């Protein structure tokens, strides 16, 4: 076994296909006049998202023994937002990001992310753009758009925005696992969604990827999106995700532009990390300052390129689409 470990985990044909995919993505943005940006992979700040962990490293200036903590980026989002505040206009990033602890069939600790921002549009218009990109780089068709609420009503007969934590827990026991208790509201929602809804979203038929957008997430899952009011008068997150063949491909927001609100959310995330016993990292004060200085109305989305490639190539594991999976890297 070990004598074969020098070999790539993906077939060379698969890697050729990846090269073409990356080239087509860059062509699309070139034609759309969106500027490619390279943001720092090494940063003095880290994400404070309670469920994303950063790799940490140390910078030692030559001739000293000083140890300066640095983090590998988990997403280019913060520096990209600083560029937007500085007047960059539409921008995209295509490259590797790093997430500690995430290894499994569809997860690799480093993976390729495409992230882009468009000025003056909301998350619905950005869904059009996502469809435009995918149709340009592969055989893709948008199948449907559903609100998060619609899907829960259809599957479980409940409104996810008003259901009590008790109701969500009971449904989780019924549909997922009776041993899952004492979780946070978002965990129950995630478990119900990923077990009973997500597997049926999107399709792959005759070589065509058929995508389904899900939009207006619970306000408790707003992350970095703004909060809006839906037709029912409920507060929801202006956020969407794209699913195809039963798994998540992209996650987008009508971006939060309020620096004060952003600071409050970061502080809350830090508290949650502390509560979960996770390392507490310094958040990006520069990003908050950028928002406070004036942030353009824009929508942004991140797309997992390895997942997209898996779909195109009809591979089940991420190791089949990257040259060297984690264990061979």
């Amino acid at each position: 076994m070990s004598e074969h470990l020098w070999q790539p985990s993906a077939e060379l044909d698969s890697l050729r296909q990846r090269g073409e995919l990356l080239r087509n993505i860059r062509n699309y943005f070139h034609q759309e006049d969106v500027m490619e940006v390279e943001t720092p992979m090494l940063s003095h700040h880290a994400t404070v998202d309670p469920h994303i962990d950063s790799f940490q490293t140390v910078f030692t200036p030559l001739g000293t023994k000083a140890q300066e903590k640095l983090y590998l980026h988990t997403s280019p989002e913060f520096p990209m937002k600083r560029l937007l505040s500085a007047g960059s206009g539409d921008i995209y990033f295509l490259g590797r990001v790093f997430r500690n602890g995430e290894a499994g069939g569809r997860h690799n600790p480093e993976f390729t992310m495409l992230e882009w921002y468009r000025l003056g549009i909301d998350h619905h218009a950005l869904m059009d753009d996502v469809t435009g990109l995918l149709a340009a780089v592969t055989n893709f068709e948008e199948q449907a758009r559903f609100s998060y609420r619609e899907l829960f009503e259809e599957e479980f007969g409940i409104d996810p925005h008003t259901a009590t934590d008790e109701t969500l827990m009971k449904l989780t026991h019924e549909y997922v696992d009776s041993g899952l208790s004492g979780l946070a509201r978002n965990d129950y929602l995630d478990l119900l969604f990923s077990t009973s809804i997500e597997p049926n979203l999107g399709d792959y038929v005759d070589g065509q990827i058929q995508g389904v957008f899900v939009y207006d997430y619970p306000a408790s899952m707003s992350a970095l999106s703004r909060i809006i009011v839906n037709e029912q008068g409920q507060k929801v997150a202006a956020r969407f995700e794209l699913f195809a063949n039963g798994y998540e491909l992209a996650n987008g927001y009508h971006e939060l532009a309020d620096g004060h609100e952003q600071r409050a959310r970061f502080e809350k995330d830090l508290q949650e990390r502390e509560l979960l016993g996770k390392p507490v990292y310094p958040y990006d004060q520069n990003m908050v300052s950028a928002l406070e200085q004036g942030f353009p109305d824009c929508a942004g989305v991140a797309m997992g390129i390895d997942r997209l490639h898996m779909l195109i190539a009809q591979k089940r594991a991420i190791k089949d689409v990257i040259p060297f999976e984690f264990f061979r890297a």
Partner: protein
Amino acid sequence: MASYATNEFRSGLKVMLEGDPCAILENEFVKPGKGQAFNRVRLRNLITNRVWERTFKSGETLPGADVMDYDMEYLYTDGEFFHFMMTDGSFEQHGASKAAVGETINWLKEQEVYTVTLYNGSPLSVTAPNFVMLEVVQTDPGLKGDTATGGSKPATLSTGAVVKVPLFITEGEILKIDTRTGEYVGRQQK
């Protein structure tokens, strides 16, 4: 017994769940982009043989199960238990219940070596080798001049098992049986 965390759940690992020993079949890491990580795990309950689908928070642990496979030779049955002896030279004997022997009763032959799975030192299950040689004790006479092609007929083996055999097989012949499918593979040359 050691404990195992979800990231150590590999196919074949034996763990305790709700008081029963289970074998891990599959372990899928599930992580929403912005949410807590979970592991979706398929396990086989080794007592009931039922497959369970369970979801655990990533990092949760389960105690390991004291389940081990041993090669043992089948000796005899006293009517209630089926007695096996270790082939490691220890001559240690274990009595397996009818439930532990299960379907393998169809392929039990003295002096043959079986895989006996011990749980806390007692036989939990008995697995036959892939192929066993068994004698035909009853079958109707075949048609004269028949060859390997054509129909089949039932034959009762020394263990009591009934298998489909070609028409040319006669009583007293020794047959090679695939225990995984219960099918006739061939006969011992006379």
